[in-house]
């Protein structure tokens, strides 16, 4: 079948008139633009939750090396299993995303923008190019944007080529520079040494669209939604065992139980929050909140119904990481393979508790010793399943498969 519209709730983005956010931003000084973003308390929607205002401030203060300029990169690599809200944003709200990039450019003094689109979404490219063309014609990109003297900025679309790790911001930059997508050591961070060695802001698609909404409606409005530490609304990509999978907008701070109610997933035995690199939350903890202060996520919610085999789930995630590890550092390259082997041993019912404990210690090593977020977070799913579903995974017989 052909894809259908994923949206299951009205979105705040429906109420934002394209152009209004940019106009409001350009009426402010650069410092005030960053001040407004900081006042909104917006945190990155790509998963890590870094405060957007702080990131922009660092990039604005960073010195350009030589003649070249600063860059704004939109991270549209959306590879985390169970995440598809950026696809919806790029399909239905591309203006708001490009506008957020333009506001970021104004704030930090960038002249070039790049949108790194995952190869799997290449079918969106003609649409995105058309939106860019329209914005150029409307004076929203190019020279003297909306009559602002000296404000020049344009955006180019670049394609990924099927590598999850390229969503990691330094791997993404490596890829843009024509290299293998192998993460760099951080520091230095992209705000100082990013694309072509220049100060670069990398933001998620949803973060940038949210910036546009913040300028259209005000930081105070945004801050009024959500919790003290997790301001604003958030898009959730919901899949798995529920009546109505799709994209939902909820205020941050919603509990898993409330969310399950809304998506028709009550009775679930577990919910994976944060995708393969997140954790499997058992039913006993459904009162927990989805927020930066409790369960942080880029928006991936996968519901597991009562009949699901959690070891099978863990295996699928580990296969993913074995496949997607860039192989650059040993804890991740060898660790993920070892964990997958451990799962196969558990499947056969041949894993002692002592061996399981060794695997748990390996997880801890991977979390601290891996070079990038992939290896640091790949043990999460395994750990949460081993911890929360131990009775289900130990001493299995062929009948349990």
């Amino acid at each position, binding site marked *: *079948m*052909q*894809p*259908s519209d*994923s949206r299951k709730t009205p979105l705040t983005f429906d109420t934002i008139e394209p152009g209004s956010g940019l106009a409001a931003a350009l009426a402010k000084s650069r410092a005030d633009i960053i001040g407004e973003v900081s006042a909104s308390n917006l945190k990155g929607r790509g998963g890590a939750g870094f405060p957007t205002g702080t990131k922009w401030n660092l990039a604005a203060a960073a010195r350009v090396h030589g003649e070249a300029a600063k860059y704004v990169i939109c991270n549209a690599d*959306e*590879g*985390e*299993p*169970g*995440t*598809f809200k*950026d*696809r919806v944003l790029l399909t239905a709200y591309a203006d708001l995303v490009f506008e957020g990039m333009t506001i970021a450019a104004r704030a930090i003094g960038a002249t070039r923008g790049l949108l790194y689109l*995952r*190869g*799997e*979404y*290449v*079918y969106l490219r003609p649409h995105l190019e058309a939106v860019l063309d329209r914005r150029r014609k409307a004076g929203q990109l190019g020279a003297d944007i909306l009559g602002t003297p000296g404000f020049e900025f344009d955006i180019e679309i*670049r*394609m*990924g*080529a*099927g*590598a*999850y790790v390229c969503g990691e911001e330094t791997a993404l930059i490596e*890829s*843009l*520079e*024509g*290299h*293998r*997508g192998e993460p760099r050591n951080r520091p230095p961070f992209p705000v100082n040494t990013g694309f*072509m060695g220049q100060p670069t802001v990398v933001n998620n698609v949803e973060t940038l669209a949210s910036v546009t909404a913040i300028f259209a409606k005000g930081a105070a409005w945004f801050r009024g939604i959500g919790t003290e530490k997790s301001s604003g609304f958030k898009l959730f*990509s*919901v*899949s*798995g*065992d529920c009546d109505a*999978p*799709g*994209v939902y907008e909820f205020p941050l701070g919603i509990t898993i139980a409330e969310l399950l109610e809304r998506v028709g997933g009550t009775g679930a035995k577990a919910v*994976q929050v944060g995708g*393969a690199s997140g954790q499997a939350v058992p039913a006993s903890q459904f009162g927990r909140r989805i927020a930066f202060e409790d369960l942080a996520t880029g928006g991936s919610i*996968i519901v*597991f119904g009562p009949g*699901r085999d959690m070891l099978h*789930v863990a295996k*699928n*995630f580990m*296969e*993913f990481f074995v*496949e*997607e590890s*860039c192989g650059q550092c040993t804890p991740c390259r060898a660790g993920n393979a070892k964990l997958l082997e451990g799962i196969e041993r558990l499947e056969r019912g041949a894993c002692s508790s002592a061996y399981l404990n060794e695997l748990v210690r390996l997880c801890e090593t991977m979390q601290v010793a891996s070079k990038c977020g992939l290896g640091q977070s790949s043990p999460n799913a395994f750990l949460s399943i081993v911890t929360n579903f131990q009775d289900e995974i130990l001493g299995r017989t062929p009948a349990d498969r």
Partner: protein
Amino acid sequence: MLVSQQQKLQEEIRALVARHGRTRAALMPVLQELQEKYASITDFAMQVVADELGIHPSEVYGVVSFYAFLHHEPKGRFQIRLCQTISCDLAGKARVAKQLENELGIAFGETTPDGRFSLEWASCLGMCDQGPALLVNDRVYTRVTAEQAHRIIEECRSVFGAHATQAAHA
């Protein structure tokens, strides 16, 4: 490859490099266009790209081998990539996979002898609410059932054969 074909490819790569700029950052876009047109990137193509960008061919090979969507080995005119990640797994990808294998007579990772179809696994395609999902070249199919496997393959054979990738088996 015939000398005339090599010359043609060489000219083509020169034009690509001229368009994307003679910089290392042009490497991915150049390789992606070659991949799209020829379904694989041959040793000869890698050598020419390297010469044009002033880098060592092993650098080009390093990049080609890193990315799942760039291929050194010849691939079919139609590359079928079935999502193997969790949501599509829960939605029943295993049966779709089996039926695709049955229809094409090949296993995952293989190409049909006539060079028409390759069957591959993909990581999450971002269609998790509508799984099982698969890509045929750059076209996405959702909620695929085992019964539909045959129809999708037939569609490849007829409907959009005209503007599909031109396989470079010459």
